[in-house]
C-alpha cells in the first residue's frame, strides 16, 4: 500500500483501534467488554420478535425504541475497539428494526401463515439432521488432520445403500447398517490415498464425490430401473412424544424421526469423545502436531485412518436419514450439495461440535423460513431459496471471526526416515 493510502486507512480506523490484550480468538465470548454487544443483539432480536406471532405488536414504536437502544450499544462497542462484535451488534440492531417495520406492514394473515414456530422448528430439525451428521463426520476427520471434501459422496453412498439394504432385508436397521458400511468403505479409499499415499486431499475428495455419484446412479438405474425404489421401502420410524400441548417446542418435538434424535445424540457423543476422553485428546493432537504425537509412540497413521473411516460412517448416516428416514425413496444425486453445506457448517462452528450444531440449525432454520416466505411475495420465491447459501457465504467469509482449523489439517504426515 502507498504511504498516503496507509495513512488514510489508519485515520479511518484509528478510532476503532483494538485495545491491547490477548489475541481475539482466545478472548472469551462473554467477556465484560462484549456484554453491551450481546445486549444489543438480544434487543435487536426482541425488536423483531414482538412484531411476529404470537405477540403481533402492530405499531413500530416499541421496536423502534428497542432498536435505538441496540444501535447505541452497538456504536459504543465499535468505539470500544471491538470491530467484530460491534459489527454484529449493528447488524442485529438495524436488521431487527427493519424486520420489525416489514412485519408491521405485512398482513397478519400472512405473518400467521409463515411464522408458525412449531412447524418451523420441526422443519429446521429435519433439514439440519443430514447436515449435522455430515458436519460431525467432517469434524472428526479434520480434527485428525485429514481434509474430507468427500462428505457429499459418502452421504450419497449412505443414502443409496441404506435404501438398498433396507429393501433387500426388509428392515430399516439393517438398511442403516449397510449404509454406514458403504460410507466407511468410500472413506477407507480416501484414507488410503490421503494418509498412506500422501495425495492431495482435496483432489482425492473431489474424485470420490464423482465416484459416489456415478456408482450410486449406475447401481440405481441397474437395480431399480424405471420404476424407482419400491413404495414399501422400510422406513426409520418416528418417535412420538406426548408433548403437543407444551407450546411450540413441544409441538416441534412431538413427532420427529428417530435419526433426528440420533443426530443430536451424535453431537453429544462426538463432543464427549473428542473433547473429554484421552483418545479424543490424541485425535486432536494428531491434528495439531503429528510429529510430537509420533515421538510419544502413538501411531499417527492408525488414528487418521480410524478418524477418516468414522467420518465416512457419520456422513453416511446423514444420507441414510434422507433416503429411508425422510423421503422414503432414493433419487439420483438426492443429496444435492448438502455435503458441501455441511462443510460450511463445520467451518462456521470452528470445528467444535456444539457450535457446528448451532450452524446446522441456523441453515435449517433459514431453509425452513425460505420455503414459507413466498407467502409474502411469489415473485421473489427463487430469491428466498438463496437464503441458506447467502448465510453460508457470510459464514465462510470470516464474518464469524477467524476460524482456525487444526494446525496440521490437510498436511500429509511423513514419517521421518531412519
Amino acid at each position, binding site marked *: 500500500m502507498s504511504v498516503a493510502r496507509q495513512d488514510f486507512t489508519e485515520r479511518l480506523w484509528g478510532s476503532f483501534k483494538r485495545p491491547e490484550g490477548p489475541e481475539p480468538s482466545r478472548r472469551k465470548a462473554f467477556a465484560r467488554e462484549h456484554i453491551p454487544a450481546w445486549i444489543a443483539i438480544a434487543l435487536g432480536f426482541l425488536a423483531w420478535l414482538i412484531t411476529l406471532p404470537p405477540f403481533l405488536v402492530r405499531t413500530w414504536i416499541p421496536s423502534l425504541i428497542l432498536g435505538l437502544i441496540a444501535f447505541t450499544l452497538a456504536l459504543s462497542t465499535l468505539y470500544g475497539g471491538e470491530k467484530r462484535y460491534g459489527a454484529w451488534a449493528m447488524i442485529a440492531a438495524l436488521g431487527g428494526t427493519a424486520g420489525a417495520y416489514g412485519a408491521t406492514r405485512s398482513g397478519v394473515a400472512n405473518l400467521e401463515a409463515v411464522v408458525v414456530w412449531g*412447524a418451523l422448528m420441526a422443519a429446521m430439525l429435519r*433439514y439440519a439432521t443430514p447436515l449435522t451428521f455430515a458436519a460431525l463426520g467432517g469434524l472428526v476427520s479434520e480434527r485428525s488432520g485429514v481434509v474430507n471434501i468427500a462428505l457429499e459422496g459418502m452421504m450419497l453412498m449412505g443414502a443409496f445403500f441404506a435404501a438398498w439394504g433396507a429393501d433387500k432385508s426388509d428392515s430399516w436397521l439393517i438398511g442403516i447398517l449397510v449404509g454406514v458400511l458403504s460410507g466407511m468403505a468410500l472413506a477407507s479409499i480416501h484414507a488410503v490415498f490421503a494418509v498412506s499415499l500422501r495425495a492431495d486431499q482435496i483432489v482425492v475428495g473431489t474424485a470420490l464425490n464423482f465416484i459416489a455419484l456415478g456408482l450410486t446412479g449406475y447401481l440405481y438405474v441397474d437395480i431399480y430401473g*424405471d420404476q*424407482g425404489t419400491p413404495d414399501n421401502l422400510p422406513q426409520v420410524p418416528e418417535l412420538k412424544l406426548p408433548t403437543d400441548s407444551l407450546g411450540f417446542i413441544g409441538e416441534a418435538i412431538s413427532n420427529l424421526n428417530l435419526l433426528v434424535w440420533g443426530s443430536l445424540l451424535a453431537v453429544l457423543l462426538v463432543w464427549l469423545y473428542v473433547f473429554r476422553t484421552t483418545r479424543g485428546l490424541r485425535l486432536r493432537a494428531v491434528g495439531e502436531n503429528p510429529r510430537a504425537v509420533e515421538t510419544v509412540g502413538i501411531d499417527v497413521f492408525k488414528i487418521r485412518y480410524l478418524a477418516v473411516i468414522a467420518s465416512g460412517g457419520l456422513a453416511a448416516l446423514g444420507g441414510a436419514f434422507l433416503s429411508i428416514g*425422510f423421503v*422414503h425413496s432414493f433419487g439420483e444425486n438426492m443429496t*444435492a450439495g448438502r455435503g458441501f453445506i455441511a462443510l460450511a457448517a463445520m467451518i462456521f462452528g470452528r470445528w467444535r461440535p456444539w457450535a457446528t450444531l448451532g450452524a446446522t440449525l441456523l441453515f435449517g432454520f433459514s431453509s*425452513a423460513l425460505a420455503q414459507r416466505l*413466498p407467502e409474502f411475495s411469489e415473485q421473489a420465491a427463487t430469491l428466498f431459496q438463496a437464503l441458506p447459501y447467502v448465510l453460508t457465504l457470510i459464514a465462510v467469509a470470516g464474518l464469524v471471526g477467524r476460524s482456525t482449523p487444526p494446525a496440521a489439517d490437510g498436511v500429509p504426515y511423513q514419517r521421518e526416515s531412519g
Partner: protein
Amino acid sequence: MLAVSRRLALLALVAMALFGIAACGDDDDSSSSSGSATTQEQPAGKKIKVGLVTDIGGLNDRSFNALANKGLQQGKSELGVDVRVITSKSNADYVPNLSTLAQQKYDLVIGVGFLMAEATETVANKFPNTKFAIIDVSQQGMKTKPKNVQGLLFKENEAGYLAGYLAGLYAKDNNINTVSTVGGQKIPPVDHYIAGFQAGAKAANSSIKTLNGYSQDFVDQAKCKELALSQIARGSGVVFQVAGQCGLGALDAAKQEGKQGIGVDADQAYLGSHVLTSATKKVDVAVFDSIKDAQADQFKAGTDRIFDVKTDGVGIGKISSAGAKYQADVDKIKAQIASGELTDIPDTVGGK
C-alpha cells in the same frame, strides 16, 4: 520415475484406450439408414428412427417423462421403429441432446416439456429436414414458427378441474376446509393444472380454501415433501402434486400424515391408498400418435395438436375407495366438459 520411452508407451496406450471408448460410445449409426425423411411412400411399418429427449425430472418421475418414454417404447414394440432416449440432467443439456439426435439423422425428435421450448426452436431451425415434436409447447407461439415442428398441447386445466371437483366433494364430506397444490416451477403446464384444480374445488365446495406453493425443483423430493408438510400443517386435507419426481415427496407427505394425495400426468393410484386420484395427461398417447404419423408420412408439422377431455387426451385416473362414491358426479362433469357445456375453466393462477 519411468524412463521416457516407457512413459511414451504408457501415454500411447491410454490414448488408444480413450479412442476405443469413444468409438464404442455411439451405437445407433450402425443400424439401417433407410429411415430418410424424404423417401417415397412405403408400406406401413417402415423403420424410422425416433429420438426422445427427456426433461430434468428424469425417467423415474413416474409421471411426465416416464409416460413419454412409455409412448416411445410402445412405438418401438408396436410399430417397429428404432428408438433412443436421452435424459437431460440440466437445462444446459437440452440443445446438445436435441442436436445430437438431429445430427444423427433421426427422422423424428421429440422434446418433452415446456422448459425446452427455446432449445427446440433453435435446433429445429438449424436442422430444417428433421421433424420435431414438442410436448407442452405451442409451435404457433414460437417466435420463428419453424415449419418442421409440431406442438403437442394439452388442456391440463380440464384435468385439474376434474381432480379439483373430486377433491372438493371429498373435502365437503370429510370436514376438510383446505386443499392444496404443490407445483414444481411456475410454468404454464403446471399453472394450468393448478388453476383448473382450484376452480374445480370451488365449484364443488364454494367455501373451500386453496393453498399453493412452488418448490422451484422438479427433482429433489425432500423439497416438495417439506412444502406439502407445511401445507398439511396449515390444514390441507388433499394435496395435489404437480411437480414430477419432486412431487412424489409431496404424496409421501400425504401418506405420512394420513391425508389424501392426488397424482399428476400418469395414473399414480398404484402408489398407495392415499392417492385419491390422478389428473392424467396422455403424454404416451401423444408420443405414440406422433410416431405413427411420422411413420405414415402424415406428420402435420407447422401446427399444434391439442389434447383435451373431448379427444380423451386428458382426464382423471382411477379413483380410490375413499372417493369411489363421487365417481358418478365426476363422470357427469367430465361429460359436460367434453360436450362443451362446461367452458371457461381458468388456466392461470390468479393473485391471492
